[in-house]
């Protein structure tokens, strides 16, 4: 254990800073926009008949009263006018005054109000980002069209993303291939401190994987199947914790009536589903104190529709996805982002007999950093997961049938 780990020095009775979230009331149509924003889309409604694009979200086309459908749109825009808000009755924005916003003419057609990047003024070309605010609702953010407008570096932009630089991150399983790749990626992305959880070693060779050369990485025993181990881990962490990434899972092949192994199934649930709950429960009180708290879960895309050859894993991942959505709902009120990375089979020892395509752990780790810095709620990594999500969104009943023929 290194001495570099930051420990918060504070009187436990000192008044904690209360964190607020932006106004959360939305129409159902706006929630549909938020669901698309969470998946990284820049989607607006378009009329199925007259093809006009409309905003704010409506329930019927304002030009011909035909049906509207969501569709990805061009991200370009021009800033028409701007203001700096210096007075508000809302507690969240009051904490963040002054706040710059403006009106933009979207290349897609409509005009919209948007948060403004510090580098933008009236007349400028902008690139629009559809982001999620701290309350989990879609928001339009106008960034400079040229160059790379790093959201975490912008004073307003950082409210919509999860910066990694200088933050403290816990990786729940730092022993498996994905966990190790992630520790490396977080270190490279400038994380201030990475805590690698180490589940109990299953074999002598595992002990080799307990060494992390980077000085800002620290390892700590963490067994998600044991509530006491989870409590002890967080008691040792003590200090500020910004991001938790749950890399733990238990992958074994096996069906139900054929090649069934109830012990494997039970362990898959104990680590994947109940382990998620133990981890989330312990992490929540620490995350809600942080300005940009986030919890990211790496899920198997088999959680959407099962792979009958991995029945236990599929079922535990489905349960885990369900728990994640409940946790996301709870954390919205506290401004903590709860996100999911969906992956197909990973290129590791758990999927030795699974044919390609498989996603490399390093790729998964890289995409997870991108998800954080874009403030996304969901991202599919690798061809397998992208294809699975596409099919599932299109026709879930068909997908679960065709997946196992």
């Amino acid at each position, binding site marked *: 254990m290194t001495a570099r780990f930051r420990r918060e020095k504070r009187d436990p009775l000192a008044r904690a800073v209360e964190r607020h979230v932006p106004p959360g009331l939305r129409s159902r149509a706006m929630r549909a926009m938020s669901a698309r924003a969470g998946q990284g889309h820049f989607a607006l409604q378009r009329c199925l008949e007259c093809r006009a694009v409309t905003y704010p979200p409506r329930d019927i086309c304002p030009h011909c009263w035909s049906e509207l459908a969501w569709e990805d749109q061009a991200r370009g825009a021009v800033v028409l006018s701007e203001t700096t808000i210096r007075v508000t009755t809302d507690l969240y924005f009051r904490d963040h005054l002054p706040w710059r916003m403006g009106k933009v003419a979207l290349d897609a057609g409509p*005009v919209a109000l948007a948060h403004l990047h510090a580098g933008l003024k009236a007349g400028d070309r902008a690139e629009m980002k559809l982001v999620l605010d701290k309350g989990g609702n879609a928001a339009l953010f106008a960034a400079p069209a040229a160059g790379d407008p790093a959201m975490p570096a912008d004073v307003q932009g950082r409210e919509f993303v999860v910066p990694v630089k200088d933050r403290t991150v816990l990786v729940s399983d730092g022993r498996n291939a994905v966990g190790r790749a992630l520790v490396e990626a977080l270190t490279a992305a400038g994380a201030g401190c990475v805590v690698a959880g180490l589940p109990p070693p299953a074999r002598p060779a595992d002990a080799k994987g307990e060494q992390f050369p980077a000085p800002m990485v620290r390892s700590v025993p963490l067994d998600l199947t044991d509530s006491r181990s989870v409590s002890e881990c967080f008691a040792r962490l003590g200090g500020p914790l910004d991001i938790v990434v749950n890399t733990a899972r238990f992958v074994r092949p096996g069906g139900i009536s054929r090649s069934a192994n109830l012990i494997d199934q039970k362990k898959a649930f104990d680590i994947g589903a109940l382990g998620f709950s133990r981890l989330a429960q312990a992490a929540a009180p620490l995350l809600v104190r942080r300005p940009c708290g986030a919890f990211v879960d790496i899920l198997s895309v088999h959680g959407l529709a099962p792979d009958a050859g991995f029945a236990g894993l599929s079922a535990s991942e489905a349960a885990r996805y369900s728990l994640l959505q409940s946790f996301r709902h709870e954390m919205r009120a506290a401004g903590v982002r709860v996100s999911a990375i969906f992956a197909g089979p990973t290129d590791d020892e758990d999927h030795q007999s699974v044919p390609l395509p498989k996603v490399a752990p390093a790729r998964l780790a890289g995409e997870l950093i991108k998800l954080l810095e874009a403030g996304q709620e969901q991202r599919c990594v690798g061809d397998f997961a992208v294809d699975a999500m596409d099919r599932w969104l299109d026709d879930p009943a068909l997908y679960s049938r065709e997946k196992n023929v």
Partner: protein
Amino acid sequence: MRARASYDDVVVCAPVTVPYERFSRRSAHWWTGKAMRGLAATGFKPSDFDGFCFASFSAAPDSAVGMVQHLGLTPRWLDHIPTGGASGVMALRRAARAVQCGDADIVACVAADTNHLDSYRQILTGFSRFSQDAVYPYGFGGPNATFALITDQYMRAYGVEREDFGRLCVAQRRNAGSNPLALHRKELTLDDYLRSRAICDPVHLYDCVMPCAGAEAFIVTTPEIAARRNLPGARVRATIERHNAYPEDPVQLRGGWAVDVDALWTMAGIGPDDVDVLEAYDDYPVIVAMQLEDLGFCEKGSAAAFIRATNFEIDGDLPLNTNGGQLSAGQAGAAGGFQNVTEGLRQVLRKPLGAQVPDASVAAISGFGLVNYDRGVCTAAAIIEACR
């Protein structure tokens, strides 16, 4: 378009203003009742009112229906007007047709709103679907932010300076000086205006109205009934109303008045030069400037030059918002959309709250209401003239 019928055999009379309070423990129902009592002071009994037209933002969960039972009225004609700043002119023109056609004889038009400590935030929070979805999440600046965006664009489009808006605010404050009911009567200098703190750039403190509690009311009836009660009244020469005009304009630089301005003056049979007093809706000075243009008092784009060349005080070239307007008298919710009617009526009836515009006979009254999303949706205007 067919020619519109004139408003024959209709008068508007009995302007009532229930003195405003910055904050009130009372409900909108109480303020409405006070206004009705003011109307009844002209000699009408509660059972005489056979028409009731109501506007309020703070009467929830009640509408005009709940208010009728709360107040013990039994009208044969009822209307609820949700258009805020445009509600006074709209109440007037609806009531006028009801009386003219015989659906009602004596219509009480009332706007009343209370203002508790947290009312402003609560009313904003539930104001409209587009606001909750696409405006408030962007800094929650309320109408200040929306009008800041309009003001910013308007200033750049037409070369208007803050000083120009300041001249309007300073003149209105002078007018408020003689109005004992105005919440702000202390002199405001152009320097005070320019040095005031920014609220949402370029909107500064004195560009904003002060929310308060209050009520306004008037009666629309027949000349015969008014004469029997010895009530002086004004006839309605013309009215217009328009909603969601120019939806294709990316930023609101003109209002619905511009669509109907010719119809207004044609029906009135007079022009802007014949107006003795202008009661224009003044939630923000940029909207006053827009009305000067869109109602034909000056050319589009020339508001700055017109403001620099015109004296808007009570004894000036174009007496404007003679009670001080909402910017000085306070904005009592929907009553802010009625005070232009009651003040215009008082001036032509020569019974003002404060100073009298010399020889006033014709008043132009203009309303502007409801920022549903990025602009005011409802516009209305009326020309009234004293019956003498």
